[in-house]
């Protein structure tokens, strides 16, 4: 094809946040979307005929999960090595996200993809393979770093990205963070789900519920410390709908991730040059879906007060902050770098 000048210059930039539970996209044409990171293929031809699609992504996949081989490809923040479906699932998520951005025919697609920090360490190649099929040029960065870039906090701060599979910590020094500047722990959103599930099972042994329902309770009601409202949900007992108060269980499950986060923040701050520790303590920024737990920033700040004068805030839009930062990186990146990749 002989491209004219206009086509050559036509580039659509993407920022993608590829998360364990949710994946988001921001693009230079104004798209701002997020989806559940679930992909499913019909189990057999009957399922395919009933569903009418060969692959389902996001909420749609969750809704039809009984008829599907369902994948959540970035479990615990990494693509499961050796499981072909996981890499295929990442490809499908990327394809779906790009479709949401509606690129014009012939447009070049330049993407920056933010992934959990561990995934960047462990399977950066698998991610490149999965994503590069759909874009012309690609860069992969860690999620907390892309959040920092998006909010212009390039130095003297710590980003705490509370996701589903992992909590990623990243200290920014005005340069691209090294592996020592980043740390990942696994007491994240999925851990809260597990805690809540077992607490509810203990309290209501005769009630019927599954992990997906528990996840929805968490997303709807999560909080730490105190709130005034009651939290009551309907669960079937012996086939009969019954109202249950789950407020205490929700609080206990959500607060279970506070101690490891506090411990990791203090440990990482202590590693920094003492001259800069004060500035970083005043600049702890939470991102990711986990930062939507009501009261978590205040709770962390109080817990950290034992270790110094900490200030903990939350980014404005935690679900899209990573993708927005990745888009900003993509747009700021000089074109010669894109060409070289």
């Amino acid at each position, binding site marked *: 094809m*002989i491209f004219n000048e206009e086509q050559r210059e036509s580039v659509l930039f993407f920022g993608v946040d590829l998360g364990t539970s949710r994946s988001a996209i921001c693009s230079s044409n104004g798209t701002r979307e997020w989806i559940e990171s679930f992909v499913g293929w019909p189990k057999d031809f009957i399922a395919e005929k009933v569903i009418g699609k060969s692959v389902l992504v996001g909420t749609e996949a969750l809704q039809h999960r009984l008829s599907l081989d369902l994948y959540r490809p970035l479990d615990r923040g990494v693509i499961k090595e050796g499981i072909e479906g996981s890499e295929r699932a990442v490809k499908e998520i990327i394809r779906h996200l790009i479709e949401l951005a509606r690129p014009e025919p012939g447009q070049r697609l330049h993407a920056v993809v933010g992934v959990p920090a561990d995934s960047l360490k462990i399977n950066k*190649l698998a991610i490149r393979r999965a994503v590069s099929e759909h874009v012309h040029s690609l860069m*992969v960065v860690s999620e907390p770093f892309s959040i920092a870039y998006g909010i212009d906090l*390039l*130095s003297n701060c710590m980003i705490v990205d509370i996701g589903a599979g992992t909590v990623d910590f990243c200290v920014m020094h005005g340069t*691209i963070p090294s592996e020592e500047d980043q740390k990942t722990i696994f007491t994240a959103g999925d851990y809260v789900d597990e805690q809540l599930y077992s607490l509810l099972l203990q309290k209501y042994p005769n009630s019927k519920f599954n992990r997906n329902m528990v996840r929805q309770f968490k997303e709807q009601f999560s909080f730490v410390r105190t709130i005034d409202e009651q939290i009551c949900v309907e669960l079937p007992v012996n086939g009969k709908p019954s109202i249950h108060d789950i407020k205490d269980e929700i609080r206990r499950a959500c607060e279970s991730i506070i101690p490891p986060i506090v411990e990791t923040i203090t440990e990482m701050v202590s590693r920094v040059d003492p001259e800069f520790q004060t500035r970083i303590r005043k600049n702890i920024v939470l991102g990711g879906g986990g930062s939507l737990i009501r009261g978590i920033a205040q709770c962390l700040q109080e817990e950290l007060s034992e270790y110094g004068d900490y200030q903990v805030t939350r980014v404005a839009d935690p679900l899209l902050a990573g993708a927005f930062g990745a888009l900003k990186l993509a747009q700021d*990146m000089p074109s010669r*770098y894109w060409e070289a990749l």
Partner: protein
Amino acid sequence: MPDFFARKRVLRDRSRILRGVYEENLLIARRGFNCDLRRKRSLSRRVLAYGIVCAVMLVLHGLDVTPVPSRSSDEVETPVIATDEIVVTASPVKSVSVAELRTLEQKSDLPLSRMLGLGIHNIVIDAGHGGDDLGAIGKTGIAEKDITLDIARKLKARLQDLGYPNVFMTREDDAAVLLAERVAFAQSVEADLFLSIHVNWLPNTPVNLIETFYFGPSRDKRVLELAGQENRGSEYGLNDFKEILARLGTVMKVQESKDFAESIQKSLFVNSSRKNRKIRDNGVKRAPFVVLLGLDVPSVLAEISCLSNPAEELMLKTDEHRRDIAWYLAEGISNYLNTGAEDDFQ
């Protein structure tokens, strides 16, 4: 004023970060090539192994081998580009002529890669020119750089369809890439085969011809002029040139490149002449193209068509014709590798 300095510091940080992200991803991408391809040894090393195997086979089969004339150490170290003799390292007192090796190869009915049980894994396609370097320009304004890029893309897709997954392009878009960078890229991905695509321009004659080159000295004035044109933008200095020449003691590379060039030329000409009976076969030639110089593996430059020919220029503007040329090139590569793609063209 403090604001000014703070802003400047932020800009500096930002620029450093962007560069860091780029460099990190460049490393990942390069490592990706290494892992994905499970990095085979380069063909040049395989060629050496081939020599060893041939020597062993010759000894076993009792073929007549010519003793190596005694040489001083200085003579042995003298770089040779093309010679009629290969020193077989496994048998220090014997050597075997190229003709004998060829006989052996013909007898065995096996190509080099098969004989050694080796596959060609990494194919690099070089779309000539790019960026500010337009290459030849047709009367209707069509530029050589666009034709070569499009054919290279189609060729890559075709080769992947034919079962060669590891195909790389020295440029994926309209970027200016120095010749030295193209060579460096091919080396970085450990290319096993290198094909550079160009379109000819013959201002004084309206003919349409196809010709394919492999690296080597030439006395043909027109070929030297052509090499001069295509070598524009080379970053190589004379010292580099000498150094690379010194490394080119591999006669086998030249032989393999010639075979590769013949396969490309045959496929291009035979198929193209079905569509255009007036097309001329200018054959396979040696020429000092810089882009072919720095590689230790079979590498050729194909002038796939003639942009100065008005009828051909109109044809080159069609997607179908460019796709056909890409398929002919793929057939040439496939035939060279002896895996047979001819059936696809029936």
